[in-house]
């Protein structure tokens, strides 16, 4: 087990380098740079001053030198400062000499995105597991087909269209939910209970809409897993032993069918960290997706690189944890790993 772990961790180093290379390559597809933003298109901004900016950010050096400089800092977890956002640190914040702590851009955005997506994942799983089990038990029945149809309709609606329709219906036509944003304007003055209610009401749409979209995949996964397990010998044995169907399905079969879900959750990590550019834009949520989209439009290279690298690195770590958890939970795999 330990050997396996070490091997996996060591593998992450070349992969991280690969990720940073891909990110760096993509960035240099861009013809524009920071000196092209709106402010720069001003007669009072001389070309000379823009050249100075380029030097400041090393944009005048050869690509390979830029990459080297960047890599050197990255090892120290220093992803530099944003070009566009008043030189805010990209990843972690810093304290200036007066003791004011400025939060880093990713440090601010990541918790918001993680919270929304973890809630979404929890809701998706809560809905998908029972739906998948029902679909498997009633395989090819009308229940199975309605579940499939419902899930696919959810998957197929363009998310921003559904969002706008619901924002109108729930926020304008009926005054049931706030339309956009994370908090009410008077959030600071609320008591704890009101704060909780306020946050919850702001989160309902941005959390629920993407979960409905993600339902189809996981339900199918659970359904197929259940179908597989229900045909296996130990289930037949259990049935033959006279265990009631309920016990067979919910204690023996489900447990085995759910194991591979760990892997699926691992695979969904890029989405959890990256968030949804579209949902965050529509609902005015300052998360990772919005941060990345703005950075792309502003050609804010340190932020683009930072998000791609940190996002991917966290994904690698997440996958590792998922694999280890899987190995630990499944005796068959555990034995296999120990041997290998």
């Amino acid at each position, binding site marked *: 087990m330990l050997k396996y772990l070490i091997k996996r961790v060591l593998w992450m180093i070349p992969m991280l380098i*690969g990720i940073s290379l891909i990110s760096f390559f993509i960035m240099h597809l861009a013809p524009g740079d920071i000196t092209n933003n709106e402010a720069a298109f001003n007669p009072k901004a001389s070309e000379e001053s823009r050249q100075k900016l380029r030097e400041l950010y090393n944009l005048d050096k050869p690509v390979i030198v830029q990459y080297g400089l960047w890599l050197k800092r990255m090892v120290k977890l220093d992803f530099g400062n944003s070009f566009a956002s008043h030189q805010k640190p990209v990843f972690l914040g810093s304290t200036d000499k007066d003791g004011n702590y400025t939060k880093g851009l990713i440090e601010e955005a990541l918790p918001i995105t993680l919270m929304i997506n973890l809630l979404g994942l929890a809701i998706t799983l809560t809905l998908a597991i029972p739906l998948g089990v029902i679909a498997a038990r009633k395989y*090819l029945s009308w229940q199975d087909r309605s579940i*499939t149809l419902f899930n696919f309709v959810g998957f*197929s*609606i363009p998310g921003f269209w559904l969002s*706008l329709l619901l924002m109108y219906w729930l926020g304008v036509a009926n005054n049931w939910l706030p339309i956009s944003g994370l908090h009410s304007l008077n959030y600071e003055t609320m008591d704890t209970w009101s704060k909780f209610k306020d946050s919850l009401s702001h989160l309902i749409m941005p959390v629920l809409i993407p979960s409905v979209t993600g339902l189809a995949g996981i339900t199918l996964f659970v359904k197929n897993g259940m179908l597989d397990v229900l045909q296996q010998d130990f289930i037949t044995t259990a049935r033959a032993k006279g265990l009631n169907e309920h016990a067979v399905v919910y204690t023996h079969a489900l447990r085995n069918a759910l194991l591979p879900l760990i892997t699926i959750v691992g695979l969904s990590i890029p989405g959890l960290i990256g968030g949804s*550019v579209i949902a965050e*834009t529509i609902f005015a949520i300052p998360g990772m997706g919005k941060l990345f989209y703005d950075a792309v439009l502003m050609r804010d290279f340190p932020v683009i690189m930072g998000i791609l690298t940190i996002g991917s690195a966290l994904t690698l770590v997440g996958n590792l944890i998922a694999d280890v958890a899987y190995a630990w939970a499944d005796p068959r795999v555990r034995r296999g790993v120990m041997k290998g």
Partner: protein
Amino acid sequence: MQTILLKKALSNPLSKAGFIIIFVVFLLAMLAPWVSPYDPDYINVKAILLAPSAQHWMGTDGLGRDVLSRMLHGGRISLLVGLVAVGISTAIGIVLGAISGYYRGWIDTLIMRLVDIMLSIPSFFLILAVIAFLTPSIINIMIVIGFTSWMGVTRLVRAEFLSLSEREFVQASRALGAKDARLIFTHLLPNSLTPIIVSSVLGVASAVLMESGLSFLGLGVQAPQASWGNILTDGKEYIQFAWWLSLYPGMAILITVLGYNLLGEGLRDALDPRSGSSK
């Protein structure tokens, strides 16, 4: 083999519905130049934002163009983006998967690590950045979606190749001294085609949705060329007023993507040995 599979899949009412949807959507898109009541680019500034009527079944847009005609022509673009993007990703997937699964060894490790790397980067971010940097055009959009979604097919093909290699007929050919290329193209590839088709069908669905998402962000197919994504985006500002501008493209995307998913899922089910026994 493929036709048997299709027959089997179509015995499921949902997949049948999916098949019919795709068939009709394709037919309409193909026939767009003949069935469109108007030139999709014909502007009439005196007929801006007209509600659906006998003259304009789906109303008119902000420049007085006929929405129905734009939907039909836009459908061609949306479907084209989906098909070509998936064509690209499938081609890459087959090549890399075949190399990986057939030769194994270090090249397999290398390709699989590359797959892992690509899977760990949020793919929509990659697409967004590359399209913004290369400027959005139909061709760039197709290429970028293709180049960021080949990982699934690669894994699939590799797994097929690995398991097929163990089968007797492959082992026998190899023993008889068949060349690599012959083995790959006559035995391995044809036998792994079915799962590839299934995954492609599902891939088209995602690509059509992806195009509409990119349009929302201003990085989709660009005006004045119509696509379902950009008609929908145009209409989003007036969703409760000029509802026809968003309802029709929204429904078109919904129904088409649904059709692809139902068909793809039906094919996957049919492929599964379980479904035979349950019949």
